[in-house]
């Protein structure tokens, strides 16, 4: 029964995708939306049934399904095979449930778009690919999903292809992730060589545990996979594609670029955590990159003015948290944060989408304003999402997951080679700073958008079809976190117990002030944000960085000036630095370089080998011409040649 359900789980959205694609132009928007929602809905139901079966009875342990052999030959075998364990169960739940909510929302959001069929075809195809990704029990099979989600992401970012900027953004996203894919492919090749021909996750992990891989091999493989994950999850140094990816429709941003696809990297590393646990340097690298990304993302989010870009940078920053957790070995915390992040970030995006839609497609937060009067419901939803993102203590899901990460990071310790060690507290400090900044930037956004004087007028109302998912996501992002709590509050470990009953994370020995600090940082951020942007006469309305680097200092305002120098100026600097975005420039610069180089070569006549061939033929022609000159038509000259030939022949014959 259960083995039956897994293929159906994947086939439903795939079928929906095919139907919507083929029916383009023959079915009305409503029907398309229904088909898509039905496809994803059925798989949501199936995934809930599967979870129930897995947790409570008929199926124990891991459910393996092998559909058919893919490539079998001496030295290598791969199958189209799926595996349902608790990690993938969590993931399919997130994917299908959040996916369903977003689809319902999108059915209304995209109702008037002429390309709705293409949109839903891609969305459902994405869901199918994502399910393949999370369910695959063979890493090569996972790679199908891995590339498939990338393709769908490309198609959806460039959905409104009339604007070249959108397609450029789409291609940028695909290229950057493609680099990671190549790394993943190399990692797979390394692993399959080491394990002797199989990429089954179980086999790979067993091989790692048995010591079939040399330590350097493990490190290399982990590094390759890390690069892939970094690219997919837009971490340093690949972060630049994600903000641009906001060119796509908002539901896409919510589903792909916030809730699911970008977390594939996190999922992959969590899946292979045993492998990573053996590669300490890579773990340390993961942690450091995660910490750096979370800080950088937060800082950049602080100076953005585009609503969706703020959310995009915040996604990068939150993914940084997950990578930090993965690096510190607390992969359960990473997955927990992945789940809560999916809830609140989907909520934030969807709400933002609704706001933007009603505000005549205005995305600049400084042109919006005072929206709490015109759209109270959306305000409530956005505030709920924002507080969950900021991790306001106790009442939000984000608090618990972030707390879990923080406590995990505190006790992390890396033994690098040659006596170098890296311990948790500095990373913890960074994460805490990040928590503070998170609250700061998201509430800056909240205050600017919803408080203050009214900006662009709002029109219409949010349809019921859109509100239902918003409501559900509100509930999830507020209450979804209580299943796992810090020991200081309550020794409740449902989530980590769910993932791995044998290894429940508990940090009983940690001091209580850690939790207090973790709870205090968002509150402080909220306070500062209120002071800076929330009051009736806000300190700053301008975006730092966009205006001249030195922001207007209002003299005689004591505290404000202090705030300004303490926070604004460093942010300005940071913003300036991040705006410069060396990597982004480097990437575009390299692209430009390649382009000019190839253009040069082409201007110089196709390619130089062709040129060579042309030169050769020219030489031959020239030789022919020279010979032609010898045949000048004079009979005496010809006779002379004969005489010369005779003499030469005689000389050769006699002298030889």
């Amino acid at each position, binding site marked *: 029964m259960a083995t039956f359900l897994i293929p159906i789980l994947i086939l439903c959205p795939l079928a929906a995708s095919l139907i919507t694609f083929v029916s383009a132009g023959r079915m009305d928007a409503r029907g398309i939306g229904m088909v898509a929602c039905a496809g994803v809905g059925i798989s949501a139901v199936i995934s809930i049934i599967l979870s129930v079966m897995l947790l409570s009875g008929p199926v124990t342990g891991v459910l393996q399904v092998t559909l058919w052999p893919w490539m079998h030959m001496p030295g290598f075998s791969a199958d189209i095979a799926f595996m349902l364990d608790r990690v993938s169960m969590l993931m399919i739940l997130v994917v299908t449930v959040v996916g369903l909510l977003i689809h319902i929302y999108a059915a209304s959001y995209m109702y008037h778009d002429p390309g709705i069929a293409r949109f839903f075809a891609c969305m459902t195809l994405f869901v199918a690919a994502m399910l393949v990704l999370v369910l695959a029990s063979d890493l090569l099979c996972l790679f199908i999903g891995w590339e498939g989600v990338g393709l769908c992401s490309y198609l959806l970012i460039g959905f409104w292809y009339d604007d070249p900027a959108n397609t450029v953004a789409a291609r940028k996203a695909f290229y950057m992730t493609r680099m990671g894919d190549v790394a993943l492919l190399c990692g797979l090749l390394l692993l399959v060589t080491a394990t002797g021909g199989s990429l089954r996750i179980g086999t790979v992990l067993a091989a790692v545990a048995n010591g079939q891989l040399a330590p350097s091999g493990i490190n290399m493989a982990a590094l390759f996979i890390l690069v892939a994950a970094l690219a997919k999850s837009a971490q340093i140094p690949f972060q630049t594609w994600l903000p641009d990816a906001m060119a796509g429709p908002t539901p896409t941003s919510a589903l792909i670029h916030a809730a699911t696809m970008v977390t594939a990297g996190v999922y992959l590393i969590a899946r292979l955590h045993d492998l990573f646990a053996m590669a300490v340097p890579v773990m340390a690298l993961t942690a450091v990159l995660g910490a750096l990304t979370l800080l950088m993302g937060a800082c950049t989010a602080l100076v953005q003015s585009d609503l969706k870009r703020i959310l995009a940078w915040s996604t990068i920053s939150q993914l940084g948290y997950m990578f930090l957790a993965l690096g510190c070995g607390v992969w359960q915390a990473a997955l927990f944060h992945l789940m809560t992040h999916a809830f609140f970030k989907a909520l934030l995006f969807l709400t933002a989408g609704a706001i933007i839609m009603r505000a005549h497609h205005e995305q600049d937060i400084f042109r919006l304003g005072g929206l709490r009067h015109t759209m109270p419901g959306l305000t409530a939803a956005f505030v709920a999402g924002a507080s969950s993102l900021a991790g306001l203590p106790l009442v939000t899901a984000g608090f618990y997951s972030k707390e879990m990460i923080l406590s995990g990071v505190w006790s992390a310790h890396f033994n690098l080679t040659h006596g170098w060690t890296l311990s948790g507290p500095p990373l913890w400090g960074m994460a805490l700073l990040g928590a503070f900044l998170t609250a700061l930037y998201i509430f800056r956004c909240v205050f600017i958008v919803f408080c203050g004087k009214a900006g662009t007028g709002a029109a219409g109302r949010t349809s019921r079809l859109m509100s239902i998912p918003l409501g559900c996501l509100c509930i999830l992002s507020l209450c979804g976190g209580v299943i796992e709590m810090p020991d200081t509050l309550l020794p409740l470990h449902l989530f980590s117990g769910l993932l791995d009953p044998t290894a429940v994370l508990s940090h009983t020995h940690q001091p209580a002030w850690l939790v207090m600090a973790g709870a205090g940082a968002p509150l402080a951020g909220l306070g500062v944000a209120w002071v800076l942007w929330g009051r009736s006469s806000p300190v700053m309305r301008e975006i730092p960085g966009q205006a001249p680097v030195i922001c207007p200092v209002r003299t005689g305002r004591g505290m404000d000036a202090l705030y300004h120098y303490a926070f604004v100026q460093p942010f300005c600097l940071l913003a300036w630095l991040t705006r410069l975005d060396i990597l982004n420039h480097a990437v575009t610069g390299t692209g430009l370089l390649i382009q000019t180089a190839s253009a040069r070569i082409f201007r110089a006549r196709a390619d130089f080998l062709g040129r060579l061939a042309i030169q050769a033929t020219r030489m031959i022609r020239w030789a022919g011409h020279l010979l*032609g000159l010898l*045949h*000048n*038509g*004079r*009979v*005496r000259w010809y*006779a*002379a040649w004969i*005489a010369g030939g005779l003499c030469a022949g005689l000389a050769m014959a006699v002298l030889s």
Partner: protein
Amino acid sequence: MPAFSFNDTLLLATALFSVGLAGILVRRNMVFMLMSLDIMLNAAALVFVGAGARWHDATGQVMFLLILALAAVETAVGLALIVCLHAHGRPTLDADTGNLLKG
């Protein structure tokens, strides 16, 4: 009693042959070229005569006669061509001007 040995005949023939060849190469007048050609052919004929004398064989003389006939025929055809060219309005005898065909 042979007045000349075969080698002496050969030397003479070679000299004649060279004279003929040089004539062809340096003279531009077609009539002179035909004459040089005859000299060359006769040099070859002389070799046959000498060789026939050496071996006391009549075949050499036969060849000599054949070569004479050839020389006569060549001269005849050549002169006929020159006459033809004259008739078609090309009075010059300069061989170098006849280079319509080249390249």
